[in-house]
């Protein structure tokens, strides 16, 4: 529930609110970056994502660390399932 998933921003859509494309383990989905509006992320930045919204910016090193934590917790599959589910399974 309070899963925070590290993912990399690969595309921003400045004309479409706070929409961004993130990538996690090869899966790309749209998320909302509105909660980071005080310090907006750039393409290539890593963020922690929770229920389709970026919650905080993190370093790449921290992202890898966080992915490892998820794997250790046995939650990487749940994380991937969540990310795959964003956008009502749009492709």
């Amino acid at each position: 529930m309070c899963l925070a998933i590290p993912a990399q921003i690969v595309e921003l859509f400045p004309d479409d609110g706070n929409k961004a494309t993130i990538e996690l383990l090869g899966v790309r989905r749209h998320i909302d970056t509105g909660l980071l509006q005080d310090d907006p992320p750039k393409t290539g930045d890593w963020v922690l994502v929770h229920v389709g919204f970026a919650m905080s910016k993190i370093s790449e090193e921290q992202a890898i660390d966080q992915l490892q934590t998820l794997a250790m917790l046995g939650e990487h599959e749940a994380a991937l399932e969540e990310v795959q589910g964003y956008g009502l399974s749009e492709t």
Partner: protein
Amino acid sequence: MKYVDEFRDSAVIGKASAEINRLADPGRHYRLMEVCGGHTHAIYRFGLKDVLPPNIELVHGPGCPVCVLPMGRIDDGLSMAQDPNVIFTAFGDMMRVPGTQGSPLEHKSRGMDVRIVYSPADALKLAQKNPAKHVMFFAIGFETTAPSTALTLMRAKMLGIRNFSVFCNHVTIIPAIRAILDSPDMRIDAFIGPGHVSTVIGCRPYEWIARNEGKPIVVSGFEPVDVLQSIVMILQQMKQGESKVENQYKRVVPWEGNKAALRAMAEVFELRPYFEWRGMGFISQSALKLRESYSAFDAERRFNVPGIRVTDPKAAQCGEVLKGVLKPAQCKLFGQECTPEQPVGALMVSSEGSCAAYFNYEHRKSMVLTNIGVAV
């Protein structure tokens, strides 16, 4: 060291564990509460109890959104889905939580339009795709999740969407901690503070715990080494006779929190005068509701919500477990009538619930050991 040995930082873990053993006074019993269900999961998953001295007791806190929701709210939410025009949406965690007439998933099998969404934004998208239907989102979660619901509602208002509403069950962590400290049957020496809630609220809201209650609180990450380091920090404070707020999870949690997220919450939500928590009763100012300016999106105002109050199944002792008075295995139903496959109480549903965590790691481990003839 059965589990933690598998992990990459076992040397660091050994060091932290030695430090804990050095700092802990053998003549004293320590009761440390991990507030967040994510920590409970991590503690069982990694078998962290095995590396702690026996006089350090970890008490599981209320930080599991699915677990603290009273059954009546599930019934209330499902009552709205009786309307054939309504699409009921919720996170996957909610789907197997039992109401008196069954879980949302069971309602789906009876023909109700019940759908899992992974984001509140997707519930809104579903409303846009189904203009002839009304989409209701069953919102749960602490401050980690509430800002996302808030931004979704701000977007819905901006777009002028009329067929979308939120059944708001967002709760706030501070009043729950206060209720625990006020409870006469709870004696907690210090807190392992929630990680992801704190990315939003920051560390300041905990200051009264240290200042007024004299209890150390350390905001912690979720890796085994994070949790152990937080325990070291707590023990150091206690040894010095100090109580302060410390941030072990600095790499993710800023001291001031996320101001944009707090602004979004303030725009959309206000505090309810009181809210019922499973096992803890009514706690004042412990939950959020939609402000008047968002009333058009408030499911509780759009629908005739019965306001059902249900007591938990008598034999189930979710409340005592939730407050940390009982350990999961001390509940009469644990592992027999109530299992992750056939949950009676919500604590057995969510992976963050202490019963599910205990069952999946401790209970199964001891069953395996018993089966191969090892005394446990």
